[in-house]
C-alpha cells in the first residue's frame, strides 16, 4: 500500500523551478532515501509533503489525505526532523519531550509513557536533566529525532539527519534510525551516499527538481553499471567519476 503518493508535484519560486513534476510512491513501512546535490529539490519536496509550503501545481497524498485539501489530517499523520537541530535550547531534555507531548494533546499519563519509551529507545534517560543547549551535537540531533516521534507519526521525514555530525555520532544515529525501520514509513534526505546504502530500502535520485531514478540499490547498480551508491549516483546525475 502506498503511504505517500505524489502526482506531478511542482514548485516554483519566482524564476526557479525547485521541484518539477515529481510523481512518486512510497510504500508502508519502507525507508525511502532521497538523494541529490544541493538545490536538487529534496528539501522543497519534503516541505510540500509536510504542508510547510504549498505546491504550485499537482498534489500529494499521505495515506490518501491530500496535502492541499486535508492539511490537518496529513499533519496528524506525520512528523519531521529538519536539517538544523530543532529543540528548545533552555529546556531540559525531559522538558522538551513534555513540551512536544503537551503540544500534541497528550494527557499526563500519556506524557509519562512517551518519556519512558523515548528514554529507552534513544538512551536519553542519562541526559534527561540536562538543558538541550548543553548537549553535544550528536545528542541534540538524537533529541531532535526523538521529539519527532512524540506524536507517534505514521510517516517520519528526516531531512539530512546526520549532517555535520562526526563519524561516531553518525553511526550511532544510523543504529537509532535502523531500529525505527518497519515501525513507520521513513523518508530520509541525505548527502551521504553511504548513509543511503546502509539504511534505505529504496532510493530516489533528484536533479534540477526532477526525479531521475526510483528503485532499490540493486536496480540502481544495474541501471548505471556501478557497484556502489556513490559511483552510481555520480553516473546518474552526470558528474565526472574521475574527478
Amino acid at each position: 500500500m502506498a503511504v505517500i503518493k505524489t502526482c506531478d508535484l511542482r514548485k516554483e519560486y519566482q524564476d526557479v523551478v525547485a521541484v518539477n513534476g515529481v510523481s512518486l510512491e512510497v510504500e508502508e513501512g519502507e525507508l525511502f532515501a532521497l538523494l541529490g546535490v544541493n538545490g536538487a529539490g529534496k528539501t522543497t519536496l519534503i516541505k510540500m509533503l509536510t504542508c510547510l509550503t504549498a505546491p504550485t501545481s499537482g498534489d500529494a497524498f499521505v495515506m490518501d489525505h491530500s496535502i492541499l485539501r486535508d492539511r490537518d489530517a496529513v499533519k496528524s499523520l506525520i512528523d519531521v526532523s529538519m536539517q538544523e537541530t530543532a529543540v528548545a535550547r533552555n529546556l531540559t531534555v525531559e522538558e522538551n519531550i513534555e513540551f512536544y507531548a503537551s503540544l500534541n494533546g497528550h494527557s499526563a499519563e500519556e506524557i509519562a509513557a512517551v518519556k519512558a519509551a523515548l528514554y529507552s529507545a534513544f538512551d536519553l534517560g542519562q541526559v534527561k536533566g540536562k538543558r538541550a543547549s548543553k548537549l553535544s551535537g550528536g545528542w541534540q540531533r538524537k533529541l531532535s529525532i526523538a521529539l519527532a516521534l512524540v506524536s507517534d507519526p505514521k510517516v517520519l521525514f528526516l531531512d539530512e539527519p546526520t549532517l555535520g555530525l562526526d563519524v561516531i555520532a553518525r553511526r550511532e544515529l544510523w543504529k537509532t534510525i535502523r531500529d525505527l525501520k518497519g515501525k513507520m514509513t521513513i523518508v530520509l534526505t541525505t548527502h551521504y551516499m553511504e548513509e543511503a546504502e546502509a539504511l534505505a530500502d529504496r532510493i530516489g535520485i533528484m536533479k534540477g527538481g526532477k526525479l531521475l531514478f526510483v528503485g532499490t540499490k540493486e536496480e540502481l547498480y544495474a541501471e548505471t553499471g556501478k557497484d556502489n551508491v556513490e559511483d552510481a549516483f555520480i553516473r546518474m546525475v552526470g558528474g565526472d567519476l574521475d574527478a
Partner: protein
Amino acid sequence: MRDSIKRIVTLTKRNLKEIVRDPLSLIFMIAMPLFMEILFYAIFHTMTSQFEMKYLAPGIVVFSQAFLALFAGQLIAIDRTTSFLTRLFVSRTRSHEFIFGYAFALLPIALVQAVLFFLVGGIIDSSFWSVTMLLGILFGMVTSLLFIGIGILLGSLCTDKGVGGVASAVIAGQSLLSGMWFPTEGLGKGMLTFMRVLPFKNATMLLQNAVNGCDDVFADIVSPLLIVLAYMIVVFIVAVFAFRKKMRA
C-alpha cells in the same frame, strides 16, 4: 477551542522558561533598571525634579519594558533560524496560537517589572506610596504590549543579530525620546512635536500621570493612552501579518 487554549498555555510556559533561564535577559530586564532606579534617585533626586521617585519609577518601568522587545524578538528569531518553529509549523498549532504564546510569556515579566520598580520606589521614598500605583501597573501592562508587539514584529522579520540592532534603536528611542532622563521644556517646538507623535514619551507620560494624578484627564491620560494603543494595534497587526507570511514561506 479547548485544544487551542491548551496549546497556547504550553507555548507560553515554554517561552517564559526560555527567557527567564537566560541570565542576560534577567540582567537587562530586571537587575539593570533596578540598579538605575536606586542609583539615579540617590544621586540626582535633590538636584532635579526629573529624578524624584514619582517621575523616575514610572519612567524606569517603561524603560525596562523596551527590553521586552529585544528578548521577545531574539527568542522568535532564534526559534526561526534553528528550525524550531518549522517543526512546530508541521504540528497543528495555528499562527495566532504562536503569537499568543509569545505575548503571554512576556506579560508576567512586565508585571514583575512594574510591581518591583513601584515597590522599590515606595520603599526608597515613602511619599511615593499611593493606591494610584495600581493604576500605574494596569497602564504598564498596556504599554508593555506595545514593546512585546515590536519584539514579535522584529523576530518575524530579522535574524537574532538583526533584532539586537533594531531593538537597541527602540531602547535608545525610549531613553532619549521619552523625556525621562532630561527636562523637555527647553527643547524646540519641532523636537517636542516629534516626541509627542512617537509612542515613547506618551507611554512614559501615561504612567507618570496615572500614578501622580493630573488636572486634565483627557490631555494627560486619555490622549497618550490612545496614541500608545494606536501604535500597539498597528504594530500587532503588522507583526501578525509578518509572522503568518514567514509561516507560509
